[in-house]
Every structure is written in C-alpha cells, then in structure tokens.
C-alpha cells in the first residue's frame, strides 16, 4: 500500500493537541511507517508555499487542531481543505471552539485592550495595538487580522470527522490513526474517538442520591475519591459529556470539564447541563435557590468551557 500523506496543523490552540500526538510514544514510529508527514509545524520544518504548490487532494488526511481566530487560521484552513481528501477537526478547539472561544464572551476590542494594555505583565504606555499592516524603513510588515469571533473549524470549511478532547487521549488518537490506515472509517460527519454514551456511564464512582445543598469550586474541598463528584457538590459535566477519555479527570479526583463535547443529539451542552443541575439542587424556595446559585462562580464559563463557538447564544459578539 502506498504511504498516506498526513498533515497536522495548529491554528488558534495551545499546542496540547500536538503534544498528545507525540504522546502515542513509540507508536509514532508506526505512524511514520504508514504515513509521510507533509506538514506539522510543531515538529517538522515545512513551508506554506509547499502546500500551496500541491495538487488538490494530495493530502490524504489532515488533522487540524485549534480554533479559527484570525485570517491566517482561516486561510490555512481553506488551503488545507482544498488539498486534503479527509479533513479532521482534531481536539475541542477545532470541534467547538475550546478554551480560545471563551473570548466570545467579550467584544473584540475588550479582548485586545485587556491583552495589549491591561494585563499585569504588560508595559504599553503608548497603547500600541497590533495592525494588519505597518510601514517601517525596511518595507511593509503585516500581521493576520484578529477576528471578532472565535470560530470552530466547520464554521469555516467542511469537516469530515470530529475528534473531540482537550486534548484527545493518545489511545483514542491511535484508534483514529488505525481507522484511517485500514480505511475503516465511519460515515462522514461522525464523531470518532469518543463514545455515544455519557461519561457517567464509564465512570466507576459510587452513584447514590444526587441531592446538592451547595456547590464547591475544586480548591474548596478534597472530595471523597470513591463517590460521585457531582453528589459532593463539584460541578462535574459527566452527565452531559461524551465518554471515551477513560474518565481521566475523574481518576485524578477532579470533576469533568466537558472536553469531549455534548452527547449525540444534544445541540447545546451548557443548556443541557443547566437542565441536569436544576434537578439535583436540594432546595425549594426561590430564596434558597438564589443562595445556592451564589455558590456557582462562573456558570456560563463553566458550562461552555469548550463549546462557545457552537453555543446557541453566541456571546458578546452576537
């Protein structure tokens, strides 16, 4: 069999997805045996010009991680889409916006002001903001345009498969690679590397009676390592999140943050979570409800930690 041409790209991301690919450890050699890596900015040298020169369809599979935040991300997404037979949204940012998309709670100008003027580590008395073009004696410098909205990949180009996770676990990545190599892929548009059932389904903790009198932030209690975290008042997203990660956070005694995304059929993970939380709150009067809700520090940011690009209500840039 001819070797596959594989591209891996990072757009607006932290680099964690690329590291997760390296975390398949010695199996990376097996990947190299079946695939030629034509682009992987984090690990191998490559130029956009080489990709531009390719015939459409030259790349068999592109694993695209990161959200689309600026014009460069968008340009490369469109370029790689054109050159790739199979486009995979790889990791939560590409799938649904991920952490970068939390910026959608703020207006573009607020984000720029915060980052370039107000952060404690910034010294910028003249209030210089990045420009897309800037004339200097040596010529013109250019920067990508910072968009007002953080998009997930399928809001920009067509996506064939979705691999959620922040990052996807090495075991699941290996499963995906094997599926690609064997040609044993599910129908287009499918989510791969995650299960169809909720994380609670694979979670081994003892589940009794979900009745909560107050919520805690993770630093406020040391939870019992055997019992369901939600029952102990930690906002575990397990009930509304796909399984497949092996309940990693749960094993570290941390609640699930929801990175594997919503269950099949759920269009808005946060809305679904509000629904489940509502029914476990062990209070009745409106006043008690209010004071219990006070114990949730940042509901929207918590419930939409990875899903802001796909949230039904779009945020400040609506």
């Amino acid at each position, binding site marked *: 069999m001819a070797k596959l041409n594989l591209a891996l790209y990072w757009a607006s991301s932290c680099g964690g997805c690329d590291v997760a690919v390296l975390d398949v450890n010695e199996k990376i050699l097996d990947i190299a045996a079946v695939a030629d890596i034509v682009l992987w900015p984090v690990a191998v040298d490559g130029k956009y010009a080489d990709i531009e020169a390719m015939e459409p369809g030259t790349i068999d599979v592109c694993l695209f991680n990161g959200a689309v935040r600026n014009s460069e991300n968008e340009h490369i997404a469109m370029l790689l889409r054109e050159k790739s037979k199979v486009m995979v949204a790889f990791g939560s940012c590409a799938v649904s916006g991920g952490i970068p998309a939390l910026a959608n709670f703020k207006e573009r100008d607020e984000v720029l002001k915060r980052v370039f003027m107000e952060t404690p580590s910034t010294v910028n008395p003249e209030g210089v903001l990045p420009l897309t073009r800037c004339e200097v004696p040596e010529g013109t410098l250019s920067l990508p345009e910072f968009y007002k909205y953080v998009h997930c990949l399928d809001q920009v180009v067509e*996506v064939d498969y979705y691999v*959620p996770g922040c990052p996807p676990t090495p075991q699941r990545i290996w499963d995906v690679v094997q599926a690609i190599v064997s040609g044993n892929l599910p129908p287009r548009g499918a989510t791969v590397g995650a299960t169809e059932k909720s994380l609670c389904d694979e979670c081994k903790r003892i589940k009794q009676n979900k009745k909560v009198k107050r919520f805690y932030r993770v630093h406020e209690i040391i939870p019992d390592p055997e019992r369901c975290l939600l029952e102990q008042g930690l906002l575990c997203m397990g009930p509304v999140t796909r399984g497949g990660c092996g309940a990693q956070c749960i094993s570290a005694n941390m609640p699930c943050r929801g990175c594997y995304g919503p269950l099949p059929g759920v269009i808005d993970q946060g809305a679904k979570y509000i629904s489940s939380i*509502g*029914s476990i709150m062990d*209070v009745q009067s409106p006043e008690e409800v209010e004071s219990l809700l006070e114990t949730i520090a940042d509901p*929207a940011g918590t419930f939409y930690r990875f899903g802001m690009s796909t949230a039904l209500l779009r945020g400040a840039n609506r």
Partner: protein
Amino acid sequence: MENFEPKIIGFLCNWCSYAGADLAGVGRMQYPSNLRVIRVMCSGRVDPTFVFKALSEGADGVLIAGCHPGDCHYTDGNYNTLKRIPLMLKVLEQFGVEKERVRMEWISAAEGSIFAGVVKEFTETVRKLGPYKRNGLERGGKVG
C-alpha cells in the same frame, strides 16, 4: 424602534397555564397577539435548550408558565423549573442577553385574567427592550 411587534414564544404547561390561557380565550379577555403558544405537558419539560433555540431563531422573548408550586400534575416538575430557570437567567446575562426577555410565571387553570395580564405586561417589557439581536453567522456542520 417604532412599530416593533415583538415575537414571544410561550411554553405553557398542559394542566394549568394552558387551561388558564384557554379560560382567557373563552372569557373573551383581550391580550396581545404577540405570544405564540407551545403547549408542553409540564413546565419541567422546558429544557433551557428550547429557550436558547427560540431566541437564536427569531423570538424576542420567552414565557414559561406552569402550575403554582405544590400544584404540578407530576408533583414536582415545576420545582425543577423553579431551580433551572434562575440558573438559566444567570447564564443568559453572562451571554449579554437581558434577563427580562425570559419570564417564569405560575398560572393556574382558574387564572385566565392573570394570564391575560401577564401577556400584556410581558409584551410591553419586550417591546421596550427592542428586538433580540442575533448575528448572521451560520453554523456550518453538525457537531455532536
């Protein structure tokens, strides 16, 4: 915003509020036609997804009405409503949506005039707020 006629979606529970709306109708009480009623079996059936979807697809306001606490046909469905909706309102505000666009009310089958009054008042509230601002972004594919 002259001549703005708000679109309001009303989720009414079958056993109390829908019957209350019916009574308002039978009693020929006048109330604005801005409300589009969707009958649900219980206010506890109203998933926040319904509300967010209504807003994102054309509604300017959403009314959720059910039996008075203690009177739910399914015993405690409306207690879930009573806990869920305030949490949903917090989330709405963080999204930059005025929480006055969503209203929760308890209306019994005998309270036709209260129903008509709530619809009148709520329509005016939403009219003052103006149209719900949506952006034109289309979601590309089907995630999840």
